[in-house]
């Protein structure tokens, strides 16, 4: 069925995506469900043809000759296997007849966290609610990490809050969903290693973003400045030195322009927060990604001891990851990443090496082709008769 027949556009857009294009909500005419539509552009010429709302530095920008980019293939097949109560599900997948883009429709319920906080200024700062939401946020992130993926852009517009009803509604019922819409905001809620343009990124980037959201829920406004994000991060957490960021990034050049600060006591900024909360916050907002707390560990932090038993039961994936304490080897790890990440890596490289020896090095591709083409066409002819 044609997309326009199935869905009706709802409003003027809920934000801007990473590739600087607006994202719209649509109503499924049949089921009455609301989805948010993200488009992944496939063709290079179309990227040039579409006016961009900002300077062009899109991740999908690839020359046309690759066909459907490998990143897109991996990305969408990852969305297909995600299955967790705190992650928005992929409800619709379709492409346009010209193959210029793929449409991804994600479940969209309630409002985003930013709007929720704006509309419910008092309620959203209720400690019990914050605890419940943080637990759900971290469960979702732990699930991402357990399938060997990272979200990479956790911020209040990519987090949906639903089922909050009126002020008397039970805090435990409020539901949180992480979506894959890649909406962008300022400040970016991104980890310092991303802002410093390190090329060694890990799942720890999501944990810093979760820390920013946690801090924002506690004080009711963004923790870091919009204009000088990195500067304000260092102002609160201290300017990193060679010792504190060892092995993460070569700092000398990049840090020159930042003032030297020493870390502040978080309980002075986050007044009235219980000590366990401050402790968790400091572990999430750890500058060094290697020392930052992992999602599966964070779920076991004493801050969450009050969470009801039913909420404390994570999905099997998250539970398994928590048991080992190593989020990078979840049960689906071998199925998601490239084969280099799975347990088979050693065997595969061995196999690849051997097949190179087996296949005669003298036989060029075209020689092989010709002999095989002949054989294939001969065989096809004979089986025809």
């Amino acid at each position, binding site marked *: 069925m044609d997309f326009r027949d199935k869905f009706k556009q709802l409003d003027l857009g809920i934000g801007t995506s990473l590739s600087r294009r607006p994202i719209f909500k649509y109503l499924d005419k049949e089921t009455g469900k609301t989805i948010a539509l993200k488009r992944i552009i496939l063709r290079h010429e179309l990227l040039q043809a579409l006016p961009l709302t900002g300077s062009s530095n899109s991740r999908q920008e690839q020359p046309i000759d690759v066909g459907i980019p490998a990143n897109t293939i991996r990305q969408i097949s990852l969305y297909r296997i995600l299955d967790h109560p705190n992650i928005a599900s992929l409800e619709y997948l379709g492409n346009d007849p010209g193959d210029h883009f793929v449409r991804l429709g994600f479940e969209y319920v309630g409002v985003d966290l930013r709007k929720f906080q704006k509309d419910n200024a008092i309620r959203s700062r209720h400690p019990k609610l914050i605890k419940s939401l943080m637990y759900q946020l971290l469960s979702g992130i732990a699930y991402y990490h357990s399938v060997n993926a990272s979200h990479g852009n956790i911020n209040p517009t990519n987090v949906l809050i639903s089922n909050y009803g009126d002020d008397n509604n039970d805090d435990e019922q409020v539901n949180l969903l992480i979506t894959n819409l890649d909406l962008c905001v300022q400040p970016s809620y991104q980890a310092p290693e991303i802002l410093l343009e390190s090329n060694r990124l890990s799942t720890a980037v999501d944990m810093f973003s979760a820390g920013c959201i946690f801090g924002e829920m506690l004080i009711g406004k963004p923790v870091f400045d919009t204009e000088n994000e990195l500067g304000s991060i260092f102002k609160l957490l201290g300017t990193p030195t060679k010792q504190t960021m060892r092995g993460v990034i070569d700092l000398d050049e990049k840090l020159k322009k930042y003032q030297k600060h020493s870390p502040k006591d978080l309980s002075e900024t986050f007044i009235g927060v219980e000590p366990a909360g401050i402790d968790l916050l400091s572990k999430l907002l750890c500058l060094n990604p290697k020392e930052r707390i992992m999602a599966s560990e964070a779920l076991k932090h004493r801050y969450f001891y009050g969470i009801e038993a039913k909420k404390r039961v994570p999905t099997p994936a998250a539970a398994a990851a928590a048991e080992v304490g190593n989020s990078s080897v979840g049960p689906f790890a071998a199925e998601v990443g490239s084969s280099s990440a799975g347990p088979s890596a050693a065997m595969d490289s061995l196999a690849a090496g051997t097949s190179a020896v087996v296949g005669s090095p003298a036989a060029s*591709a*075209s020689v092989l082709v010709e002999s095989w083409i002949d054989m294939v066409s001969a065989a096809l002819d004979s089986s025809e008769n």
Partner: protein
Amino acid sequence: SKESDIVDIDSDVKDPQACSLYAPYIDDTRRITELERRPSVNYMEELQKDITPNMRAILIDWLVEVSEEYNLVPDTLFLTINLIDRFLSHNYIEKQRLQLLGVSCMMIASKYEEICPPRAEEFCLITDHTYTRREVLKMESEVLNLLHFQLSVPTTKTFLRRFIQAAQSSYEVPCVELEFM
């Protein structure tokens, strides 16, 4: 007793890559996923009028050669075959386009599995330019649309790895030859 003779193949908890603690869960999940995304068993009789089982065999023999030529990992080859069978379960194809389906599926599988997948041109070259780049790319998106990007599937290779581990649990030296089956 008899039970004590059974070796626990998931007893190596020290190697994080063996995922020993939850190996049984991984295995269960894969078996369920396999049932959900299994190609139909009788598409040759039911749906395909133009191609024969023999042609499929020839195609796959050829793809084995291609994967060796481009040094692709075995997982790519197995995924390729899974994609071909799933496509053929739902779509009628003429024999002239069977090889096109083969290279397009291999291109998708390479993009999913390989670190450096061969380019579309290389897949055209290997067919001796029987098909143009445009045709290969068009088939690629046709396959992806039909399968709805559902590429995370357990293949023969996935299970083989597990079975080899089970079979060898009493031997000291791993049997590398089995990997090349």
